[in-house]
């Protein structure tokens, strides 16, 4: 690791088993891009990748390896030449992987055949920055760190395995589909309308825990709730009325009303938004959300079954 980038962490699919102890579920913000990167290099989707935020790192290959870069387009380069996105390719010893600058999205994922070696904590390799556990010594990567490969690749190295754009989430659209939440009826009629019609922007205090949404304030008319278990995608309305969208490192329990939940097929799109980006929530039924989820999952399956 020559340069660490803005925030580069080891991530996998998170530690849902640990939320009963109050530990954030964590894992890749964009599970689709993370899984696709793994599948492109022949890994199971749960192996560890590097999540690179906004400004990517500079890495030098110590040995030859098969990698793939998915998610945000941070203009990846190998020895200065453009590297193909959403495609597996080989790096030789001494090859230098850099990122020239963000073109679209917020978080890119780098997978390596065999998966990155990392600390397993409570069943997951993902980095928990709050408790400094898991991932690479519980912290973001720094210049001088040396990353290893966890194990043998499951499949022989094949260059040029590619995921076409039509199988990916519609990253350029900033509409997030959401199912009405358990406490939607506590909002007054005007707030219910605004929630699904008004434009919101991702606020400056937004990170892996959640996004503060700037836009119309929502009026909650109910009494204080007893705390309950939360999920990624939940849209909470705290007392000030500006909604919060919970993301991968969200607190596990809380008592603010949940007025909507962004569905799993839209969370990858949310994960690629940056502070200042506009977004729009759109109501959807759970049946439609399941169909969207299945369509994306089927796209990932094509990478698994391409016989390479």
């Amino acid at each position, binding site marked *: 690791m020559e340069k660490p980038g803005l925030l580069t962490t080891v991530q996998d699919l998170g530690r849902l088993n640990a939320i009963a102890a*109050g530990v954030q579920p964590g894992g890749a913000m964009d599970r689709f891009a993370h899984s696709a990167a793994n599948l492109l290099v022949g890994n199971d989707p749960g192996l560890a990748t590097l999540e690179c935020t906004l400004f990517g790192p500079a890495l030098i290959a110590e040995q030859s390896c098969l990698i793939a870069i998915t998610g945000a387009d941070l203009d990846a380069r190998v020895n200065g030449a453009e590297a193909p996105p959403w495609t597996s390719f080989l790096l030789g010893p001494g090859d230098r992987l850099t990122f020239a600058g963000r073109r679209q999205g917020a978080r890119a994922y780098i997978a390596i055949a065999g998966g990155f070696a990392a600390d397993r904590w409570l069943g997951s390799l993902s980095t928990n920055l709050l408790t400094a556990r898991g991932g690479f010594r519980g912290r973001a990567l720094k210049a001088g760190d040396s990353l290893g490969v966890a194990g043998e690749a499951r499949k022989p190295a094949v260059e040029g395995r590619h995921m076409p754009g039509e199988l990916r989430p519609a990253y350029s659209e900033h509409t997030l589909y959401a199912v009405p939440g358990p406490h939607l009826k506590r909002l007054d009629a005007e707030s219910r309308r605004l929630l699904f019609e008004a434009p919101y922007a991702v606020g400056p205090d937004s990170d892996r825990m959640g996004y503060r949404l700037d836009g119309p304030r929502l009026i909650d008319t109910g009494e204080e709730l*007893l705390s*309950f278990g939360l999920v990624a995608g939940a849209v909470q309305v705290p007392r000030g009325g500006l909604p919060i969208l919970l993301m991968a490192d969200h607190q596990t329990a809380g008592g603010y009303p949940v007025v909507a939940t962004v569905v799993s097929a839209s969370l990858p799109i949310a994960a690629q938004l940056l502070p200042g980006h506009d977004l729009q929530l759109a109501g959807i039924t759970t049946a439609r959300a399941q169909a969207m989820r299945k369509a994306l999952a089927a796209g990932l399956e094509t990478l698994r079954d391409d016989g390479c």
Partner: protein
Amino acid sequence: MRIQPLGDTALLAELSTRLETAINTRAIALAAALKKRRDVRQAIAGYASVTVHFDPDQATHESLAAAIKRLAAKRPPMEEPGRLHRIPVNYDGPDIADVSERLNLSRNDVIAIHTRPIYRVFLVGFVPGWAYLGPLPEELALPRRDLPRTQVPTGSVAIAGRQTGIYPLPTPGGWHLIGRTNVKLFLPDSDPPCLFRAGDRVKFFSISQ
């Protein structure tokens, strides 16, 4: 009981809107029963609710809601009394003078009232190792601080509303800090990584000079 979707892979089953030990006991038992199902990835009891994460390839909201109603209709198993933790507290927190004054009590009264009950762990969550304990005696009930602190030290013993708790990590917090303890709540090298579990009982005792 209200059962409603939390997106496409989870749901919230609300047993009640009241803070009652019997309802919390039912919620914990229901979460434990649901966790044994193959189509359930995780089930977490809240004060009076259960949040269920399910495998959408094996279950739907409808199939799981029906299963939850069947399980909830069964007589809950007799609850074993939760483990009892005795927690030493030095009641020298930065807010104890302010709390005494606002409640019109002496510092010793605050200590006597806070150490009197055996509290129940209603729920573990929010941040790693945090446990919502209660009910706090009515005499000590105060709304949260107007200005939350940006950093509360580990081990701070705090009160707010009808609840009490111990900060397991340095985190922001809006509760009133009345004391501190050396007991570690967050145990990163254990699994589960926390001292308290839902349904446990907690008794504080004073080691103040």
